[in-house]
């Protein structure tokens, strides 16, 4: 068992634990911080899988952007230190049973499926090759979705402003 494997399990455990804590804690600010750690852990897993670019993006967007956004929104809507209300019991029961059942189903599927793992060396995962293929419009390029996503981001930008802006009463 190599060191990277051991690190993987440790990181995975951290991801799950922080994820769980983020879901279960009753302090909203802490939830955000736990989520932050969980997301960082996921970035670690990407690094362990040699997906450096993705890991970088993960940290940049999630940790740097989304979590900050969330924390801002928490500040906008909450008194600091407020405890969150207890979840409804019926939701806990229903949610837990559904999640458990779903997990069993999914794991069952994974268990039955024989994945053909190849060990052959893959192509380059560097940002350069990713960028090449993504912006290629000849061979399996993703320039079209890329444009759409950029448009989506623009729309989201405008949308946020429209939704969040205070309507002036006449």
């Amino acid at each position, binding site marked *: 068992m190599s060191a990277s494997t051991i690190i993987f399990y440790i990181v995975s455990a951290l991801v799950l634990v922080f994820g769980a804590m983020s879901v279960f804690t009753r302090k909203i600010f802490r939830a955000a911080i736990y989520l932050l750690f969980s997301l960082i852990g996921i970035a670690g897993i990407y690094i362990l899988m040699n997906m450096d670019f993705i890991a970088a993006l993960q940290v940049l967007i999630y940790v740097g952007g989304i979590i900050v956004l969330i924390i801002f929104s928490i500040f906008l809507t909450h008194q600091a230190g407020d405890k969150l209300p207890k979840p409804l019991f019926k*939701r806990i029961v229903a*949610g837990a049973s*559904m999640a458990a*059942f*779903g997990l069993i*189903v999914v794991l069952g*599927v994974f268990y039955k499926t024989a994945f053909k793992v190849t060990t052959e060396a893959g192509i380059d995962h560097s940002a350069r090759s990713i960028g090449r293929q993504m912006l290629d419009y000849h061979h399996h390029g993703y320039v079209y979705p890329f444009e759409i996503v950029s448009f989506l981001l623009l729309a989201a930008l405008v949308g946020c402003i429209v939704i969040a802006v205070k309507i002036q009463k006449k």
Partner: protein
Amino acid sequence: MTLDNIVLLIPLLPLLSFLLLGLAGKHISVRFSGVIGSVILGASLVLALITAYDYFFAIGKQGGEFIPYLTAQLNWLPFNSDLSINLGLVLDPISVMMLLVVTFVSTMVHVYSLGYMKGEERYTTYYAYLGLFTFTMLGLVLSTNIFQMYIFWELVGVSSYLLIGFYFSRPSAVAAAKKAFIVTRFADLGFLIGILMLGYGAHSYDFFTLIDRLSHPGSSYLVAMTGASFLGMSTLTWALILVFIGGAGKSAMFPFHIWLPDAMEGPTPISALIHAATMVVAGVYLVARLFPIFAVGAPDALTVVGYVGAFTALFAATIACTQTDIKKVLAYSTISQIGFMLFALGVAGWGPGKTEGFTAGMFHLFTHASFKALLFLGAGSIIHAVHSNEMKDMGGLRKSMPITHITFLLAALAISGIPPFAGFFSKEAIFSAAEQSNPIIYWVGLIAGTLTAFYIFRLYFMIFWHKTPDAHAHNHEKGEWAMMIPMMLLAVGAVFGGFIPFGDFISATGKPLELPIELSHIILPVGLGVLSIVAAAILYRKESDVPQRIVNALGGFYRAAYRKFYIDEIYLFITKKIVFKLMGRPSAWFDRNVVDGTVQKTGSLTIALSHAIKRVQSGKLQAYTMYFFGGVLLLVVLLLYKFA
């Protein structure tokens, strides 16, 4: 003018009177409306006399017997190629006789009403109704078709209804009108079913076709209808009994008699016309019309007719002895006399020497019309003078109402069967017919006849004697010529009507028939009649306490008779308690709560269901996600394990 046109005009003239006075009544001065009605009816009477003369002495007789003369035929309601309701007019001895009776009495009543109804609020309407009644009654007697008779049967019922309810602001009049209509309607149900059976059996509704097909032994229709039996009687017997039930209803036979005494709520001339002389004898006329079928096809049914008639004659006579309202006494007397007519028909048969009862019944119908109408008109003028129906308010009126007194006395003698008045001849004929064929009926009839003389003279003495006349009383009859003349004319009929050689004209077969008057037969009935008159004179001529003592001695029986043997109460019980409470109310309840309740419940169930389902649309985001996710899971599981 040909005879056909004349015959057609006889009923149409009163119809014209009805339409004229009914539709244009507002534009006719009240002074003239009665006169118009009377004149039109007078014209009708004249035409009827011409018709009768023509028929009896010119065209009716062929080969020594009277045959029916049909005219104005109309295929009114064709059902099938072989079955239809035809309207038409028929002249034969009984219809012509009825024609005379109806037009004569109706004219008398029209004239009488000029005086009696003077100053009434709905005077014109009254004459319009009179015209309607006369039209429908004439239509009834001239019917060629049993369905046509049923049509006019219903129409006379409704004109009777309208006239009984003439004083419609009086609750008792409204109730009486309703009762009369409903009781007869109920009986008519039997008539209708009887008609349906006859029509189905004989493939015709025409009287003469029916008679032709059902009164010849060996005819295929007769064989078919007497062959099938139900509850021990042949189809034909059933049909005729049902038809007779209709007749019994209209003729107020037991147990349908209850409407007639109440019908006295109508104006008195109406009682004279409709409820004494004409409409109530329609049942007798109906049986007479179908007599050959009764006699040949279903003698059992005829026997039923006889017993019902005899029982009613006695039953009604008993009640008549106890009543104190003079119109009620006369009403029960009418019921009793119609009983006489019916049992006369009932004791008759088919074949030589057996048909005397038929002629006797018809004869009594004829004479009864005049003397009973007279009695009622007399009662009317008394009520007009005294303003009361109760005997106790009368007494000693012989001085102040001399004409009424004399005519009333003549009529009373006639109804008691004292020679030589009209009733004597017809009653003798009835008794002699009954004695020959059915002793039970004969003796019952004899007792009823004795009672007749008693109650009518009880009435007579109570009205005109009983108290000492008031010497200073003014004459109530002064200036009432419109009322007196009809009474005198009717009195002529009551006195001399019996001398008509009735058998020469009217018989079951159409051939002349001799009605024998034998001394040996006369003595008993006449003797009993005279005895009861004497008894009535002793009891009621002067005020005394003897009648009360007799009443006390009779006790319960008297009370029962006075309360009309509680028949009304039984009817009330059946209608109020059974039909209304046990049938009507549950039906209405069932409909509202069960049938409609089901509909309403379906509706409210749907609403409840939608209320239940709408909870799903809770507005809770997480609930929606759960449904969604649950659905996805379900689909996944299904796709994985079911359809894999």
